[in-house]
């Protein structure tokens, strides 16, 4: 659902090759799998794309939680289609990461043993149906804000995956806002649920852009390599500016007493999320970290016999074909 921006490492590289590589990026050329690239570029991409892929997959869990309890058959079909899209997004991204020399199963193992992370937003629970609205509207909304500029990222396979994903993402946000409209314009109790969902998801959504990158040198490297197209703060501001009028239309209150339009800047002023909470959730102490990892581990372990069985069947059939020839 979203690319958490990751720091890159500078490495000692052949200066001529590096210069030629950076000139290609400056000229707007795409880097393709077999092209020469600095080790730091490859490593940063594997982590960023891998983490993005894991986020799409783990991101199915909070919404999957409501599929069987959707209020109507239509809402259920919509939510099912949305969650299926997220599985697809995960697959596009694993494929993009695989072009860099890491396998999908390897990436999965790294997620399961904690070497790789996924977006911290998915460690928050979805308590009511209104949360399906808030997740689509805010979480997919923030994801879109992150993903749209990444369509122009310098690595070809990543860029192409992002283009496919962005095409599908707009439906996600709109179906979420549609749920919010139904709730906000419904009974007083429904409106309270909508407000409560906004209250709980506002700051976690702001955290999705990552901490302020003003001081980060690594972030500058990723920007230079066009692995990252905007700073976290730019994207967060853009998200706030776009989302506040949408909340106003719903008649809901953004849970930030300091939120105010700043005429001079032409942007909203807003409160930063609690970054100590962000780092704590990232460390594994969010409300649902343990549940999410357990669900992924269980799915992987219980799917083992299916993966093995289908592989054995395919090998047997291939052997028979050879024998018949």
């Amino acid at each position, binding site marked *: 659902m979203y690319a958490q921006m990751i720091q890159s490492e500078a490495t000692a590289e052949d200066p001529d090759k590096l210069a030629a590589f950076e000139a290609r990026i400056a000229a707007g050329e795409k880097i*393709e799998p077999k*092209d020469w690239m600095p080790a730091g570029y490859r490593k940063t991409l594997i982590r960023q794309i891998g983490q993005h892929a894991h986020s799409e997959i783990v991101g199915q869990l909070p919404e999957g939680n409501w599929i069987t309890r959707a209020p109507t058959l239509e809402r259920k079909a919509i939510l099912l289609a949305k969650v299926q899209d997220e599985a697809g997004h995960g697959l596009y991204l694993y494929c993009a990461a*695989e*072009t860099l020399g890491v*396998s999908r199963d390897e990436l999965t193992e790294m997620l399961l043993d904690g070497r790789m992370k996924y977006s911290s937003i998915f460690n928050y629970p979805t308590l009511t149906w209104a949360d399906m609205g808030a997740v689509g509207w805010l979480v997919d909304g923030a994801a879109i804000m992150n993903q749209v500029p990444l369509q122009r990222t310098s690595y070809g396979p990543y860029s192409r995956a992002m283009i496919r994903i962005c095409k599908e993402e707009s439906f996600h946000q709109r179906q979420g806002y549609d749920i919010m409209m139904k709730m906000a314009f419904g009974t007083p109790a429904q409106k309270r649920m909508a407000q409560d969902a906004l209250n709980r998801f506002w700051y976690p959504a702001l955290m999705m852009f990552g901490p302020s990158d003003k001081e980060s040198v690594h972030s500058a490297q990723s920007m230079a390599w066009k692995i990252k197209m905007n700073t976290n703060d730019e994207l967060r501001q853009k998200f706030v500016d776009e989302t506040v009028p949408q909340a106003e239309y719903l008649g809901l209150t953004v849970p930030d007493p300091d939120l105010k339009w700043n005429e001079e800047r032409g942007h909203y002023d807003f409160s930063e999320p609690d970054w100590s909470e962000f780092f704590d959730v990232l460390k594994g102490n969010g409300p649902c970290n343990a549940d999410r990892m357990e669900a992924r581990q269980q799915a992987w372990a219980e799917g083992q016999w299916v993966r093995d069985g*289908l592989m054995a069947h395919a090998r047997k059939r291939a052997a028979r074909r050879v024998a018949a020839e």
Partner: protein
Amino acid sequence: MSSVNPGALPQSDEAQPKKRNEWPLWEVFIRGQHGMSHRHVGSLHAPDADMAIRNARDVYTRRNEGVSIWVVEARHIAASSPSDKGPLYEPSESKVYRHPTFYDIPDEAGHM
């Protein structure tokens, strides 16, 4: 979105510490509309060709993007290498006379 890279097979994993029983990688080509060529859209893992086509249906055509699907195991694809770029394409660069604009045809001759 794919590794058209016959050197790196998911199955040939000597370099990896633990042997994985990983499904092979398939490249997926889709004909978007009648009359168009198949186009590479990405890749996926599947145990065999039948499953690869089914998975391609689910992964790459959820919104009517295709009328026909081809899959081929990634290790069967041979690709030119980026360092060949110059020598491989050079012969066509010097042959300007292969383009219609090389020839000046007088207006009097009419449309050609």
